[in-house]
């Protein structure tokens, strides 16, 4: 069979030209660009990045994490690229993945002067990473269905049926962090027993915190485990919800900061350091508090913190240290793999 009109050779030449055109989509600027991998939501992170470029004149090529890719994303990509990294700075929306990169020797220590603002609990002792602007693990409650009180939630969670309670699958995102914290606090057996009990009593397991939020916001479930950013999204949409912090038995909360780190053997370490200095500044923490309702971890002008973020600051002050959780993260994953594959 032949193409009489679309001859393969002509067609191949045309495709080659198109490929050449697509290959030319590189930075046209002569200034070297900082390459940033960013797991924080683009909608909030992009204005911060634009502000950096505006203030310093340094262009930033950013690759955001893809929600479709979930935890397969940037951490795994950085591990795959570690021999010859293309990324200079990693802005993670959590710390556990960053600590994993530290354990795999992907990070390069950098002590930013701005890191002095941040409490020791939220930064690495060897300066491989620094935490900033956090969110909290919370219960989201449908206020049409139940009272948003700790006692009501406790009662709902201790009932025989949890089919009106939702949680995201523990292999993804902050639910994995939550499980790791519980593993560090309780040990493997107790965590597994708790997990089994939740499932035996019919808890609704969904594929992400945003789905948990939707189930509760729509009144399909009464209460769910999620994060402050998702709860705020439901509140912004006018849904009848409220949030309360998830607390451990000793009343400590789960505060999950963003973290920033310089990549070992990166191409533009000096640009990377300037970006890290910028990101750890009071200005950025306040910006993120105002836009994404993230909790400033460093010292900031209290009057500039939005009203709705202030109670979160009090909850975050009770936070558990996440470093022990990072140490048991691999054990949690091994167990979850066995659970998932049945092997």
């Amino acid at each position, binding site marked *: 069979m032949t193409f009489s009109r679309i001859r393969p050779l002509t067609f191949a030449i045309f495709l080659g030209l198109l490929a050449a055109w697509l290959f030319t989509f590189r930075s046209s600027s002569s200034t070297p660009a900082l390459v940033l991998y960013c797991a924080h939501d683009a909608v909030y992170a992009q204005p911060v990045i634009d502000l950096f470029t505006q203030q310093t004149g340094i262009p930033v090529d950013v690759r955001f994490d893809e929600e479709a890719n979930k935890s397969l994303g940037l951490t795994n990509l950085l591990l795959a690229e570690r021999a010859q990294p293309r990324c200079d700075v990693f802005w993670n929306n959590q710390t556990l993945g960053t600590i994993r990169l530290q354990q795999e020797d992907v990070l390069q220590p950098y002590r930013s002067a701005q890191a002095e603002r941040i409490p020791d609990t939220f930064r690495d002792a060897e300066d491989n990473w620094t935490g900033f602007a956090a969110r909290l693990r919370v219960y989201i409650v449908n206020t049409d269905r139940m009272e948003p009180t700790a006692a009501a939630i406790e009662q709902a969670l201790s009932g025989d049926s949890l089919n009106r309670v939702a949680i995201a699958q523990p292999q993804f995102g902050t639910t994995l962090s939550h499980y790791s914290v519980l593993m560090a606090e309780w040990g493997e057996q107790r965590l597994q027993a708790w997990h089994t009990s939740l499932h035996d009593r019919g808890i609704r397991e969904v*594929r992400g915190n945003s789905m948990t939020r939707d189930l509760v916001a729509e009144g399909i479930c009464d209460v769910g485990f999620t994060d402050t950013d998702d709860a705020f999204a439901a509140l912004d949409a006018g849904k009848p919800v409220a949030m309360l912090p998830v607390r451990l038995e000793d009343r400590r909360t789960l505060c999950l900061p963003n973290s920033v780190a310089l990549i070992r053997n990166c191409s533009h370490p000096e640009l990377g350091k300037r970006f890290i200095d910028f990101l750890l500044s009071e200005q950025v923490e306040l910006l993120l508090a105002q836009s994404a309702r993230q909790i400033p971890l460093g010292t900031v002008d209290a009057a500039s913190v939005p009203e709705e973020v202030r109670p979160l600051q009090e909850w975050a002050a009770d936070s558990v240290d996440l470093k022990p959780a990072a140490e048991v993260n691999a054990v949690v994953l091994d167990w979850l793999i066995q659970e998932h594959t049945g092997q």
Partner: protein
Amino acid sequence: MTLTAALMWSIGRALLVTLVAVPLSKSVQQLVTAQRSGSLPQRLLTVAALLPLFVPELLTGFTWRLASAKLVHSTLATEALYAALLLCRIVALQFAVRLMLPGSPVSTEALHLWSMMPRRRTSLHWWKSWWRLKIFGPWRVPAIAFLAGMLLAFQDFETAALLQIDRHPVAWTVWLFDAHALGEPLSRALRFTVPAAAVQLLLIVPGLSLLVHGGRLQTAQQAVRQSSQSTAAATTGVGAITVTLTIGTTVVWPLLGNVPDAALGLLRLWQKGTLLPLSVQILRSAGEAFLAAGFALLAAYGLQSQRVHRKAWLTGRSAVALLPGLIGPLVTGLVLLSAFQLPILRPVYDTILPMLCSHVLMLLPRAVLLVAVLQVLAPAVARHSAELLRTARSPTVQQASNHLIWILQTRRWLLALAILTHWCFWDVTTASLLRPVQFEPIVIRLYNEMHYGRTESLVAMSGLSLLLPWTLTLVALQLCRRWN
């Protein structure tokens, strides 16, 4: 849940849904053929029946995921909703197969004559030939439609992932994704994909065999099969209900629910001045998808030529080339990600090349099927006759010849290219793994918008992403036609 269990769920569901879809797609075909040939109603019905095949899974999943959430208290209801959404796409695909492929080359008279032959129930030869006549005759098109439907249902990932609650609907593709998300090494992920690839080969091999060996001409009798008036009315009635339901589920319902949001979203994009950069992003994404589709079509054409040259309908080399597409974009993408870390390939890692390679490999099995269909659609006799006409001195005859070649060949190849481009454009897994830093395909942005809960901008962007490339395609087709 084990992989075996997830595979069983996927196979069982695909089998069930596809079996239901076969008679439904036949009734849709009869509804369409009952209209006056070439009339406006017939054209509109054809487009309506095919539309569900081109609605991106992202939009379907997004529209129905809250409905799925409301069904959370019944696993069966969640599975039924997912099966219904799959059914809509499979009916459309099977209708497309029925529309494109010629009817049976074996007439009812031939079958009757064969059945009249003496000693028919004792002779093995008789039975063998009887089955051959049936399989390559009246059963051929339904069988190909069935196999294509099974393949589509079995490969689905995004709709299942978007609807999934309490691990339902169970799908092997989602299972594999979760296993990798938990940190399963690539070697184990590759091992996991072997049974799934085997299942798909079991569908593709007989499908290709039927396509290639089944003859290219239908009998006149088959095309105008007689049936009683009441049966015909009942069948076209079922066809009309099927088209209404599939269009309602995949097009009208999402449109009704999202048009106000889309209008608001477009207005906001316009006010922010982001419409132009967004259009550029869409066109760049479409450009990459077009490129991948073009290379996949060329590669499929090469494999096809090799097949003709060697007189084998599927060579070993072809089967190996098809495998990456069959093990799914996730594992293929991960293998390529590792490969492009090798020193020799590292310089081109941060370009579109890795993504392009993965897309070409992903599209190749579908491209091979499309090339096989195109070969069946444009028999050499017809093309040769059209080519002969071009040698005529009369400009009118030459013009008629050009028109025939356009219809028989060029338009079909361009449509095949557009369909492959569409599939590639909406693939999110490959893009999320292998895209260069400076190139964000629009589909990635859409997924992120969905996560942020920005419905207005999501539906506005999705609408543009759907309309812009297809409008360009239609314009290009018109230009090609004029040039032809």
